[in-house]
């Protein structure tokens, strides 16, 4: 016997309002039509590393593509900046004159960037509870992750670095089995 038994008794005396009779008819109708619905609503579920995900990783794909384009653009830009300086030094009409050593000439391949790391910061993860994905036999737990992904490249010779950062959102559906 706990301290709340009287209160619990009082609470149980409260009766929730009854559903309208129309609701029973509607449920009956919906159950009759459900087999047709199942055929019409066949969802596309993709598998990724054992998890079923409704989100096809578009954001991640777009992010990586954007990062690749930016990297390429940066590499081309840096290379173009170096080309005239090297030409001037090599085509000097006075072979005995040493060209003034340019700072950028210290590198034989100034545009070579090597990956220096990446982070995937999950700044929000929201458990949205169990869901019944249409057509799925089992319930799934839906978890929404908001992340900030950052990729870094560094030129070890010039010390230049490149960083690309972008937000992404992932919705992960985790299969749940009843016990």
């Amino acid at each position, binding site marked *: 016997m706990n301290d*709340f038994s009287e209160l619990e008794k009082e*609470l149980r005396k409260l009766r929730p309002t*009854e559903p309208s009779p129309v609701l029973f008819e509607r449920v009956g109708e919906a159950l009759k039509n*459900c087999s047709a619905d199942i055929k019409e609503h066949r969802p596309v579920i993709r598998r990724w590393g054992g998890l079923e995900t409704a989100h096809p990783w578009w954001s991640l794909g777009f992010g990586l593509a954007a990062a690749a384009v930016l990297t390429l653009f940066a590499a081309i830009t840096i290379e173009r900046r170096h080309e005239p300086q090297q030409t001037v030094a090599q085509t000097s009409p006075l072979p005995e004159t040493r060209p003034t050593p340019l700072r950028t000439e210290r590198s034989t391949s100034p545009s070579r960037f090597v990956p220096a790391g990446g982070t995937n910061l999950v700044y929000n993860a929201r458990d949205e*509870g169990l869901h*019944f994905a249409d057509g799925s036999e089992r319930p799934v737990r839906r978890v929404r992750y908001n992340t900030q992904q950052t990729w870094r490249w560094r030129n070890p010779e010039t010390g230049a670095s490149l960083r690309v950062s972008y937000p992404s959102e992932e919705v992960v559906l985790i299969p749940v089995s009843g016990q």
Partner: protein
Amino acid sequence: MEPIASHENWRNCFSEVAPGLLLFARQWVQSAADAEDIVQDAFVKFWRRKHDIRNRGLLYSAVRSLALDFIRRDARRARREATVLAEAEPVIEPHFELEDDTQSALAAAVESLPRDQREVLVLKIWNDLTFSEIGGALGISQNTAASRYRYALTNLKKTFQPQ
């Protein structure tokens, strides 16, 4: 009753759980009609997958998910309605069949509880779920469900004094 949901016994099962499910759905949506829509969708989905009907946590979890989806989808309409309702006379659809003033006071005390405590209370008292089932339905641990229930009763005891 057959443990596996089949089309023959849905009416018996639904009549048993519908009042509690509706009350649970109305923890998120004010309108009884909206709550009935949510309950209908959840029950039909549960039933047509032929789940074990003893696995009630799944049914309540489906109601909760659909109610949260409904809130998100309907946020704009809710704001518009709130503006209209602010100007009009409020019409409150009761959650309970009230018989006297004591019950009215108790119902008001329940409705004033924080939502996380109220949903556990609703599942425990009017739906007879175990703390384990409640934990499964709400995505929390069994211990958290039990402590929220105790907090709810403690708060109710403070605010509600039977006459």
